[in-house]
């Protein structure tokens, strides 16, 4: 657990970067610091490993004031990942990852063995270990950065905009990977970003900071979307927060209906007679696309006679996916699949909206917090 107790930071030139701020980061959770550029996120984060000492106030790590700890030793127990990965250009990937175990006095051999395990853990092939950082893509460098931070198995992980320099697809991969690792490892993570979507996706709790180093709101992501504390948070959280909030609504009550289906390879004789949209499945019952109402099939059905489908909704995930599946399908029918990707049924946008509506009603009648 990390506790910031009325920490304040004024730099030599008079800039106040953090304004009398108190915040508790629970052990084993991801807490995200989010806010516009220059609002003091990095400053606040660097107070934890004493790269910056607060002008006043104190930071406690598991109950002890970190000022009582030797900075270098303290840092070896805190993983740190930065934006450009900060890898050492003159060391191979393997030796980069072995850095902290080496600082702890492990032999080169043990440190490298540990490093190799970590590379595998973050999803990098073993032979990458022999390369130098320049020989990796940005996404791979970030993974190495994460592996290096985890190498000595520190209970606390600081991450300063670790994914902001990579393209959106790679970023999404890295975020998923972090969540997966966190499930396995249960570290206390303090994560800095200026991207509110990233904050909402990753954070168990999100701290929104405002210019001048003020804490504007500290809440679970769902609450942040539901009840922004003030105009600043409202505008920072952005426009479609209502829609994005669906990510936090579970699938309870979703009941898919059956659509007409046909198999790839079937002939026109197999097309169901009703004049509606027909969903085509392959031989493992995975959805492949839609057949227009009243469409005829020449010979055997092939994929190029189909209209591409919308996004798929995996059973049991949040309502956002269900609504998106319905809105993106040409037929207006969102396709529901199971964890293996096999067809389960379809839902309409109306069905999902009714569900949201009925939940809102039950919450208000029970008088619980919305």
């Amino acid at each position, binding site marked *: 657990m990390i506790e910031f107790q009325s920490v304040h930071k004024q730099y030599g030139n008079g800039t106040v970067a953090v304004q009398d701020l108190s915040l508790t980061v629970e052990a084993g959770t991801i807490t995200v610091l989010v806010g516009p550029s220059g609002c003091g996120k990095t400053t606040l984060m660097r107070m934890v490993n004493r790269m910056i000492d607060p002008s006043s106030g104190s930071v406690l790590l598991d109950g002890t004031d970190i000022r009582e700890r030797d900075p270098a030793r303290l840092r070896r127990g805190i993983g740190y990942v930065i934006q450009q990965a900060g890898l050492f250009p003159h060391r191979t990937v393997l030796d980069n990852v072995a850095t902290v175990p080496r600082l702890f006095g492990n032999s080169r051999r043990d440190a490298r063995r540990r490093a190799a395990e970590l590379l595998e853990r973050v999803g990098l092939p073993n032979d990458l270990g022999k390369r130098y*950082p*320049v020989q990796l893509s940005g996404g791979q460098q970030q993974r190495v950065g994460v592996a290096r931070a985890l190498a000595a198995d520190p209970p606390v992980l600081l991450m300063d905009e670790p994914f902001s320099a990579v393209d959106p697809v790679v970023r999404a991969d890295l975020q998923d990977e972090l969540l997966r690792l966190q499930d396995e490892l249960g570290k206390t993570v303090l994560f800095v970003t200026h991207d509110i979507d990233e904050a909402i996706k990753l954070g168990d709790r999100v701290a929104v900071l405002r210019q001048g180093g003020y804490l504007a709101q500290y809440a679970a992501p769902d609450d942040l979307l539901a009840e922004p504390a003030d105009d600043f948070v409202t505008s920072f959280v952005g426009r479609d927060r209502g829609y994005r909030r669906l990510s936090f609504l579970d699938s309870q009550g979703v009941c898919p209906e059956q659509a007409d289906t046909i198999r790839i390879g079937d002939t026109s004789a197999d097309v169901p007679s009703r004049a509606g949209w027909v969903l085509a499945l392959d031989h493992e019952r995975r959805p492949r696309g839609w057949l227009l109402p009243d469409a005829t099939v020449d010979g055997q059905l092939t994929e190029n006679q189909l209209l591409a489908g919308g996004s798929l909704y995996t059973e049991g995930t949040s309502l956002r996916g269900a609504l998106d599946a319905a809105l993106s399908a040409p037929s207006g029918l969102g396709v529901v699949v199971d964890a293996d990707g096999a067809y389960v049924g379809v839902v309409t946008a109306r069905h999902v909206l009714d569900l949201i509506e009925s939940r809102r009603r039950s919450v208000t009648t029970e008088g619980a917090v919305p």
Partner: protein
Amino acid sequence: MIEELLKFFGSPSNREMVLDALAEHTYLSLVPLLLGFLVALPIGRLAQRVYWLRGMLLGAANVFYTIPSLALYVLIPGLFGWPLLSSNNVVIALTIYTAALLVRPTLDALESVPGHVTAAATAMGYRTGRSFLTVELPLAVPAIASGVRVASVSSISLVSLGALIGTGGLGKLFTDGFQRWYPAQVLIGIVLTVLLALVVDLLLVGLWRLITPWTRAGGRVLPS
């Protein structure tokens, strides 16, 4: 000319004289190169870390570099109370030149190490000394290297001037050769000096390549 050269090398005492001069020249130029580097390194580091000292240190380095070398060769024995002909005078004078020459490139090289890399070293739990020796210095090597190559040439050519006070390595071959009007000997002195400079330069380049394997790992450049 060829005839004269053959005649010159025909004499065993001449051969021995040339080899001795070459050995002395190598010693008198490389020892100061090493010592000068070792002196410039902490000064460059100090200039990097202590901002208000920077101007002073760089200024002092410039001043030392502008003292004529011949004056130093004569001044140093006076200061240390050594005989005028001691080769230590040359070693100390050239160490001062090399150091003066290398302070600036060392500072620039250390400054060129990316901030996110040094920040990462600190964040991993390196103490300042270890970070300097195992992270910053290795990364500064390629930039320091070009300074050292210039210093090696300068040092090799300045050794010859020592001949005027009697300890000049290959320089003795010119002074002696001119005095006795023996062009073959002058030529040998010049050619060997140039060759020595070339060989030392090649060895230095080889050394850098050996200790900086990462600079040859082709690929994308790190985003800075």
